[in-house]
C-alpha cells in the first residue's frame, strides 16, 4: 500500500516551464506610486484609480490574519513586484496575431485556443500573467447581449456596470488579502448575462502565473441579471518555481432575482517540491450574492498550491435563494490547505448545501473551515453540511472546524462528518479481484469524490479526475 501512495504523491508536476518573453515589470514594493503606475499602464479612468487608492490606504491599517491553520514564513509585501505584462505592440484582431511564444505556452498546457474554439464550444479568456492577450467568442456572445471580456476592457467599455457592482459583494475593506487585491489587481474576467438569457456555452478562463517574483492579483466579476443562467469554469496551472509566489484573487458573483451562477474551479498550481520548497501561496476571496429565488453554486477541485486559504461563500440575501458548495481538496507532500465555505442566510426559506471532501497524503495538512449563519430574518432556512476526510498514509492530517450560528429557531441544520483511511482491506479486496493497487487507489479516491465530480461540467470532470490520477468512472450502468 505505501508504495502506491508514494508513487501517487511523487508524481512530478507536469507543467513546470518558464516562457521567455520580455516582461514589462514594475519595481518591487507597494505604495501609492505603484498603484498609480498600474492604473496608468491600464489606461484607467479616475474613479478606478480612486477606488484602488482607497483600498491601499485601508490596507496599510490592516494586519495579516493568523487564524488559518497553515504555517508559512512571513511575506515581505514590499519585496513583491505588483505589475508585469507581456509586451504587446497593438490590440489583436485574431489569434494569429498572438505572440507565437505565448501560443506555444498555451499549447504546452494543452489548451490550444483554436482547438478549444472549434471542438468544445468553450469561450476562453486566457490570462497570461496580468494582461489578457486573447479573448474568443465575443462576437457570438454579443449577439445575446452577453459581455465576456477582460476586467480592463470592462472598466473601459462598461464602466456603469463595473461601478455598480464592483465591491458590492466583496467590499474593498473586506479582508487583508481582498483589500490588497482591490489596490493592485491587474486583470481578470468580467461577465454580464442580460435578463432572461441562458448563456449557451460554458465560459472558461485559464490563469497562469509567469514572471518570477510577480504576485498575481486577479479580479473577476460575474453578474447574472434577472432570470439569467451562466456556468463559468476556471482552470489553473503554473510553472515550477523555487521561491514562493503570492496569489490573492477576488471573485465576486452577483446573481440577481431568479438567476443562477455556477462557478467551477480546477486549481493545479505548483504545490512545491517533495521537501516542501517553493510552491504558490493562494489566498483567495470568493463570494457570491443571491437575490430572491436566485442561486449561487461553487464547485472546486483543489490539488495545487503550497498554501491554500480559500472560502467560496454565499450570501443568501433574497427569499428562497440557494447556495451550494462542493469541494475536493487534495494535500500532498507538505501542502497545507485551510478551505471551506460560508453560508449566510438572510432571506426567508433560503437553502444551502455543503459537501466537502478532503484528501490528505504524504505530510499534507487539510483543514475544512465552514460557517453557516442563520440570521434573524431567515425564517425557514435549511442547511445540509457533509465533511468527509480521507487519509492516505500515516503522516498527514485532516482537521475540521465547523461554525454554526443560528438566530432563528425555525432553521433546520444537518451536519455530517467522517474521517476514513484507505484501508488495507479495501486495497486487498480490489487486488483480489485482479485490480492493480495503483488502479485501486485511484478508484477508491475517485469514489470518495464522486458526489463532487458529479457537479462539474463534463470536460472539467475529466480533467479533475485526471488530476487525481484516476480514470473515468461510471461508464457503465
Amino acid at each position, binding site marked *: *500500500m505505501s508504495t502506491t501512495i508514494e508513487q501517487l504523491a511523487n508524481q512530478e508536476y507536469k507543467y513546470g516551464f518558464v516562457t521567455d518573453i520580455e516582461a514589462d515589470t514594475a519595481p518591487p514594493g507597494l505604495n501609492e506610486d505603484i498603484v498609480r503606475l498600474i492604473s496608468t499602464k491600464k489606461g484607467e479612468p479616475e474613479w478606478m484609480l480612486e477606488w484602488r487608492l482607497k483600498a491601499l490606504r485601508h490596507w496599510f491599517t490592516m494586519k495579516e490574519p493568523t487564524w488559518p491553520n497553515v504555517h508559512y514564513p512571513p511575506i515581505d509585501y514590499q519585496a513583491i513586484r505588483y505589475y508585469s505584462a507581456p509586451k504587446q505592440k497593438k490590440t489583436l484582431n485574431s489569434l494569429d496575431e498572438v505572440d507565437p511564444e505565448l501560443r506555444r505556452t498555451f499549447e504546452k498546457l494543452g489548451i490550444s485556443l483554436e482547438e478549444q474554439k472549434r471542438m468544445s464550444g468553450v469561450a476562453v479568456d486566457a490570462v497570461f500573467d496580468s494582461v489578457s492577450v486573447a479573448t474568443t467568442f465575443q462576437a457570438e456572445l454579443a449577439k445575446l447581449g452577453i459581455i465576456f471580456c477582460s476586467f480592463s476592457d470592462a472598466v473601459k467599455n462598461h464602466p456603469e456596470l463595473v461601478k455598480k457592482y464592483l465591491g458590492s459583494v466583496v467590499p474593498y475593506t473586506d479582508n487583508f488579502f481582498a483589500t490588497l487585491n482591490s489596490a493592485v489587481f491587474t486583470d481578470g474576467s468580467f461577465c454580464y448575462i442580460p435578463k432572461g438569457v441562458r448563456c449557451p456555452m460554458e465560459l472558461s478562463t485559464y490563469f497562469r502565473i509567469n514572471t518570477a517574483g510577480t504576485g498575481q492579483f486577479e479580479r473577476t466579476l460575474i453578474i447574472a441579471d434577472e432570470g439569467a443562467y451562466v456556468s463559468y469554469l476556471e482552470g489553473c496551472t503554473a510553472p515550477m518555481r523555487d521561491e514562493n509566489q503570492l496569489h490573492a484573487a477576488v471573485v465576486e458573483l452577483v446573481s440577481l432575482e431568479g438567476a443562477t451562477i455556477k462557478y467551477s474551479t480546477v486549481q493545479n498550481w505548483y504545490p512545491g517540491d517533495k521537501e516542501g520548497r517553493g510552491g504558490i501561496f493562494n489566498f483567495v476571496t470568493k463570494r457570491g450574492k443571491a437575490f430572491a429565488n436566485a442561486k449561487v453554486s461553487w464547485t472546486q477541485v483543489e490539488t495545487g498550491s503550497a498554501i491554500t486559504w480559500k472560502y467560496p461563500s454565499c450570501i443568501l440575501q433574497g427569499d428562497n435563494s440557494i447556495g451550494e458548495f462542493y469541494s475536493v481538496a487534495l494535500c500532498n507532500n507538505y501542502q497545507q490547505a485551510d478551505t471551506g465555505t460560508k453560508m449566510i442566510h438572510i432571506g426567508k426559506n433560503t437553502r444551502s448545501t455543503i459537501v466537502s471532501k478532503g484528501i490528505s497524503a504524504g505530510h499534507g495538512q487539510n483543514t475544512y473551515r465552514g460557517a453557516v449563519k442563520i440570521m434573524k430574518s431567515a425564517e425557514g432556512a435549511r442547511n445540509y453540511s457533509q465533511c468527509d476526510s480521507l487519509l492516505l498514509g500515516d503522516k498527514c492530517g485532516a482537521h475540521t472546524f465547523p461554525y454554526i450560528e443560528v438566530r432563528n429557531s425555525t432553521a433546520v441544520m444537518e451536519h455530517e462528518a467522517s474521517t476514513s483511511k484507505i*484501508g*488495507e*482491506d*479495501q486495497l*486487498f*479486496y*480490489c*487486488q*483480489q*479481484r*485482479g*485490480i*492493480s*493497487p495503483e*488502479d485501486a487507489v485511484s*478508484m*477508491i479516491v*475517485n*469514489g*470518495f*469524490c*464522486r*458526489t463532487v465530480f458529479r457537479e462539474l461540467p463534463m470536460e472539467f470532470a475529466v480533467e479533475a479526475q485526471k488530476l487525481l490520477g484516476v480514470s473515468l*468512472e*461510471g*461508464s*457503465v*450502468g
Partner: protein
Amino acid sequence: MLDIKNLHGGIDGKEILRGVNLHVNPGEVHAIMGPNGSGKSTLANVLAGRPGYQVTAGSVTYEGKDLLAMKPEDRAREGIFLAMQYPVEIPGVNNIYFLKAALNAVRKQQGLEELDAMEFLQLAREKMKLVDLDESFMNRGVNEGFSGGEKKRNEIFQMAVLDPKLAILDETDSGLDIDALKIVANGVNTLASERHSVVVITHYQRLLTFLVPDFVHVLVDGRIEKSGGKELALELEQKGYEWIEQEVAAAR
C-alpha cells in the same frame, strides 16, 4: 491444479498453520471444516496473498507455478477467487464499474479481448439472475449499505462473472438464511459442473446439504487431521470436533 505441501505460516509472527497438506484437482469440491481458531481463514488468506500473513515454510503450487511468489492481483488474474468472510465497502465506487474493471483485468491476463460496456452488461444481467440480485445493485457503491446477506450474494455474483478456475469460499454461509444458502450453493455447483475447483471453508454442515463436496477435511490446530468423503461432514455435525481433537492428542 493446487498442491499445498507442509505449509507453515500465520499472522503477526504467530504461527497458525503448522504443516498443511492439500491436493485439489480440476472439478473437485473440497470442504475444509474445523473448530474456531484452527486456521481455516488463515489458510484462505494465505492462498489469496493478503498482506500481513506470513509463510514460514512449505510450498504452494498452482497450475505448476509457485503461488506464494505471486502478487495478490496476479493470483486473481490467474483465476483464483476468494469469497471474503467480511466483504468491505468501497463507497462511491459503482458496483458494476468495479466488476467490469476486475473482469477486464482478468481477461487481459488470459489473452482475451476486454469486454465493452454493452457486452459486459449482458453478461452481468445473466449472472445476476443466478444469485437473485436486483438490477438496482449494479448502480450502488461496492457493498455500500448492503446487508450481510446481500454482501455474501454479491461475492457469489462476482464469482459467477469472473468465472475463476479455483474459488475459495471463506465462511460464505455464515449469517445466511436458508434461501440465500441455496443461492450460494447453486452458484458454486454451477462453477464446479464446469470442471472448476472449489474450496469451501465452513463451520457447519448446513451448506454441504446443498453443495455436495467430493472431499471433507478437518483442520485442527493448523493441520489437516482427518480427511474423508461427504459422510465425514455428517459425522462431524453429530459428534462435534472433540473426538478428532482427542484422537490427535492420543496419537502424540
